[in-house]
């Protein structure tokens, strides 16, 4: 944990989010308590067009509810609506 209480989180972006962010992976320091709060923070910063309700979140390689709390070193992936097949 950094000196000011922020957590270091690694975030991975796919598809539309990757394009809107302009990169596929980053490490950032955040005060966000939950995955939802982190997404809203990043959505505001980067102008993501997809609302939270249409997204899902993976924390440390498993799908989690949006109110999951974040810890130092977590790996977060925001998952846009999928379209395989």
């Amino acid at each position: 944990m950094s000196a000011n209480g922020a957590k270091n989180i690694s975030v991975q972006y796919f598809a539309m989010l990757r394009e809107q962010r302009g990169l596929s992976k980053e490490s950032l320091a955040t005060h966000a308590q939950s995955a939802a709060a982190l997404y809203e923070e990043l959505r505001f910063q980067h102008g993501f067009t997809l609302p939270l309700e249409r997204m899902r979140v993976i924390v440390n390689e498993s799908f989690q509810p949006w109110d999951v709390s974040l810890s130092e070193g977590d790996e977060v992936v925001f998952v846009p609506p999928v379209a395989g097949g």
Partner: protein
Amino acid sequence: MFALSTSPIDARALQDAMRRPEAGAFVCFEGWVRNTNEGRTVTLLEYEAFEAVACSEGSHILHEARERFGLLDARCAHRVGALAIGDMAVWVGVVSGHRGEAFAACRYIIDEVKKRVPIWKKEHYSDGDSGWVNCECHCGAEVHVHAEPVTEAQLYARQVCLPEVSQEGQDRLRRGRVLIVGAGGLGCPAALYLAAAGVGEIGICDSDTVDASNLHRQILFGIQDIGAPKAERAVDRIKSMYPFTIFTPYPERLTDKNAMEMFCKHDIILDCTDNFEVKFLINDAAVLSKKSAVFASIYQWEGQVQVYQPGTETPCLRCQWPDMPEPDCVRTCAEAGVLGAVPGVFGAMQALEALKLLLGRPALPGLLLFDLLSGQPHRAGLKRSASCPVCGTNPTIRSVDPANYGDGLDVEVEGAGEGNGTFDGFEVIDIREPQEIRERPLAGLKSTAIPASRFEQDSLPLSTDGRYLLCCAHGARSKYLARRLRARGYPHVFSLKGGAEALV
């Protein structure tokens, strides 16, 4: 086994690897890259996957399918990277003892893969544009959420500028509460126009389910709604379109038991039904609860609209028809046929009349008849009748009595008869003509013969507190007469169901 692959999928090799002696059925699905999507020409597809989770989630789906359908084997391969038109994007194969579970499992796997596996698809179009499927504005499957919220001012801008509406009128519409009885050919367009205009609350009452033969005129429903309850499905559909209106489904038949309570929660009632029993119930309940009602009926190419507004000179249905006509005297849409646009016109007119009433405009006077085949409109001047049994100066109908709507009039032979040749407590009146009675006397039943025509006279051989059971040949004439006698102030008149035939 779930695999992601950057090179073309070898379907033959995958299939051969699944062969085994116990297998009786092999079903496979291949997804190919198509050259159009939602009307746009697609030139190229790019697939992107979150590999670790895609493989674990994909394997999980295959495991679920094996367990659930008792499969011998299930596999799936999915491409990533750039694909051209015609390329295979996904392959699913299942092997089982019999074909039933193989078909079902194959379907299950591809549906779940599309929903759950983190794979994304970017389409490149012939115009140089591109977009992520399910993520962009043009996606069809999910509701697009606008970045900018839509205001009511934007939605109603084009009607607020009408001098007859204005912002004040729009506020009146928002306070309006309309009940639509019958979610059919009339009710569907009426509901759409009322909601689109910004009416605040709309109730939809219908006990029926959607039939394939309804779809050509009942435009709130599609193929996928067949078999679903109309009131609930109509509300589901329409509330996704008009979020500023509160919709309430009443998936029940309008009856003497629920009509008054339902009407009290609304300002205007739309009669979008196709039968006299409910029309007259709506009429009486509207008069008694002091609510306005907009009636419409259609027959093949023609239809009619009539508005009742309490406290005005507009007549109710009983001003012209004191007694309900025989239920079977007109043919329904099922029998007579109808083109969907015809109830569409009249349902839209009902919505229009309801909007005018909410805006405080005068009600449509009289009856508007319109033959849409010839394009010939006709206005009939109707007047309120002082002798109307429900809205007149001295009404005989003071509550919604089930006997007035075809229900409760019939007495069944079984149950009412005591088996001793009499119907306990009833004076039986045989209303057939003398000739008919001679040909077929009532079998062992004590009765008085008074032909139906005798009841047309002013003085009747009945007492108002007497209990009478009318009998004719088949039960139709006696039911008609019983209803009329009740409306004339003889509340305990019944009809023998099935008539003389039923006694044999």
